[in-house]
């Protein structure tokens, strides 16, 4: 008995015991530390991909060729996209999932902690391989992030490096997804039924199913590319009887669900922030859950809207047009629910709330331009123009990335135990929102006027809008340094955060102290 008591007190004393530096960060199986690693990795990649975007914008400040040659320009557009999609947005959301899912469902850790460690540590190696392709003969892949055949059948060894890197990233995100599903389905606190789960948990559960359904398809597509390149198969090479359009079908069968993989967790984060600062429960919780599931289902039957111009039967074009437009119904349900949650709430506008409202506003604009692109005859005009570039940056930057920034401000006090500097946070929001619009809004006009994407040069009449866009891009990039400063300052010190942090927030994560101790929920909480 005495022995048992000693063990108890031992456990209690070492509740917050952390291993030494190397073991803690390199061999970690703790969901919070791995979450932190993911988030740091994601932020690093955001700056790396952002630097490449600035090379693109510097070159496009004026017509003609100023700084880089067109081949390097194409490497920039390609690797910028690969890094942002697979290095910044996806790992960023996995970081949030690692940190928050166990806290939200009342679990002591992720279900498969060692696999968790492995899935993170694959990523730095994958991106080292991808980035070192800049130094091989011919430079990095330059065929666009979609790696369309037959161009990628011809590229240099950098294409092989990209394929290996993509396989590794795919394995990493599949393992992350399996971990999320097992955690959510098996480790919820007693009393937390599926329909009592917080929205972020729901959106991530559905995202994880999307991931395990489509990442293997993408792995298959790039494997076919690899065997076409080196092992004499002819899946896509017309010389051997293959069909390049087939690659586009397989790629976008992965690619469209991938788009929702990058936005559903953002919807989840927004669904936590808005009720907190509107001081009302989320309006229409169950419709939110079903809307998320509906979006996930529809994402599998709309892929060909990315390739209307390859020439497909009229019935096909009509089907993909209507199916695509159908997605705006569940998405509209979500937007209405967020707006209704705010309606007559006692709203305050702290930084996370500013970001959440910014996302609702700007993402919806991106959704609207998406609806325009879905119209098949109109798409023949917009296809591969800057209108498309503007559209997907409105949904990916002002949707996914700004939601993550809002989420970071929202949970930063829980992670660090300190309040961030509210005025700096607000300044960061306004700089980001304004420069974002300066960068990408003019690109709508450029696209409508016919400026094609992925070119290092353009006719003189496009100069003015491009200059707006370039100025905005540098402003946007530099503003993010402020974010880094705020985060570092908050980690180092600041006003002590309470366990609740905000006013009566909902969710189990607010029942643990701030900063969240190294081990939480060793005894599962009971949810009523």
């Amino acid at each position, binding site marked *: 008995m005495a022995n048992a008591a000693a063990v108890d007190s031992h456990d209690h004393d070492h509740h917050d015991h952390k291993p030494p530096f190397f073991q803690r960060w390199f061999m970690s199986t703790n969901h919070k530390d791995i979450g932190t690693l993911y988030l740091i990795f994601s932020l690093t990649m955001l700056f790396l991909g952002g630097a490449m975007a600035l090379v693109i914008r510097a070159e496009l400040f004026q017509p003609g060729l100023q700084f880089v040659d067109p081949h390097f320009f194409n490497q920039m557009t390609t690797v910028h996209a690969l890094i942002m999609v697979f290095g910044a947005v996806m790992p960023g959301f996995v970081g949030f999932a690692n940190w928050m899912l166990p806290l939200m469902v009342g679990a002591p850790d992720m279900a498969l902690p060692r696999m968790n460690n492995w899935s993170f540590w694959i990523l730095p190696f994958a991106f080292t391989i991808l980035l070192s392709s800049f130094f091989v003969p011919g430079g990095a892949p330059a065929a666009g992030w979609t790696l369309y055949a037959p161009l990628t059948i011809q590229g240099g060894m950098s294409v092989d490096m990209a394929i290996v890197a993509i396989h590794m990233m795919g394995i990493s995100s599949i393992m992350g997804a399996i971990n999320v599903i097992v955690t959510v389905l098996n480790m919820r606190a007693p009393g937390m039924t599926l329909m009592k789960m917080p929205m972020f948990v729901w959106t991530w559960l559905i995202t994880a199913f999307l991931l395990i359904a489509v990442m293997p398809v993408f792995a298959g597509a790039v494997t076919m590319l690899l065997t076409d390149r080196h092992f004499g198969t002819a899946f896509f090479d017309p*010389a051997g009887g293959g069909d390049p359009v087939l690659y586009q079908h397989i790629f976008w069968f992965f690619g469209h669900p991938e788009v929702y993989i990058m936005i559903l967790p953002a919807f989840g984060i927004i669904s936590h922030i808005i009720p907190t600062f509107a001081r009302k429960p989320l309006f229409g919780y169950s419709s939110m859950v079903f809307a998320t599931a509906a979006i996930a289902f529809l994402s599998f039957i709309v892929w060909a809207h990315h390739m209307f111009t390859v020439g497909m039967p009229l019935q096909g074009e009509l089907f993909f047009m209507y199916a695509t437009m159908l997605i705006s119904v569940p998405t509209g349900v979500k937007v209405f629910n967020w707006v209704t949650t705010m309606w007559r709430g006692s709203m305050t506008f702290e930084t996370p709330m500013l970001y959440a409202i910014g996302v609702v506003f700007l993402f919806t604009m991106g959704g609207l331009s998406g609806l325009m692109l879905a119209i098949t005859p109109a798409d023949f005009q917009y296809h591969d123009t800057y209108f498309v570039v503007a559209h997907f940056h409105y949904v990916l930057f002002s949707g996914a990335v700004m939601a993550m920034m809002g989420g970071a401000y929202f949970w930063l006090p829980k992670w660090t135990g300190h309040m961030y500097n509210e005025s700096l946070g607000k300044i960061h929001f306004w700089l980001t929102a304004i420069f974002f619009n300066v960068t990408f809004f003019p690109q709508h006009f450029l696209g409508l006027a016919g400026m094609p994407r992925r070119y290092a040069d353009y006719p003189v009449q496009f100069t003015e809008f491009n200059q707006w866009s370039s100025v905005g891009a540098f402003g946007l990039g530099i503003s993010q340094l402020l974010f880094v400063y705020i985060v570092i300052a908050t980690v180092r010190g600041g006003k002590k955060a309470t366990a609740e942090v905000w006013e009566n927030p909902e969710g189990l994560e607010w029942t643990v102290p701030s900063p969240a101790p190294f081990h939480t929920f060793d005894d599962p909480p009971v949810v009523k």
Partner: protein
Amino acid sequence: MSAQANLVVKLVIICGVMFGFGYALVPLYEAFCRVTGFGGKTDIIQESVAQNAAQLNREVAVSFTSHASTNLPWEFKPVTRSMDIKIGEVQEAKFYVKNVSNRPITGMATFNVTPPRAGFHFKKTECFCFTEQLMQPGEEQEMVVRFMLDSQMPSDVQELTLSYTFFDNAKYAASGD
């Protein structure tokens, strides 16, 4: 097996199945193209069947285009640029091919019909594109395609284009056909 391990195994199986599904899309797409004519795929029939096909008193203007892939040093052009063809009539079109290099090269032609929905009703009985073609240095040939348009050809198709591309087959020659 614990509930947890059980679930992990199921999820890994889903991943494996989806990896296979990516590959399954290849034959599915082939079948889809063959059935619908999508992608400008054409159909093959026996000469005897073609000779007995129903003829209609409707003409379609058929144009021919051809080119050799950039890394194949062949001259390749249609002898007749276009002809008006009665539905159901078996016709022959000739293409001029010359190997302008000083080495023997095996080429393989791919084809496509525009508009794609006409491809399904474009029936070949014989074509140089069915087999690999070996050309000696400087050799010239007239290559032949025999074909007919079947009576199901959509009535609003008044003109269509048959296009050929010759590729260097060296990379695939070993695998045969």
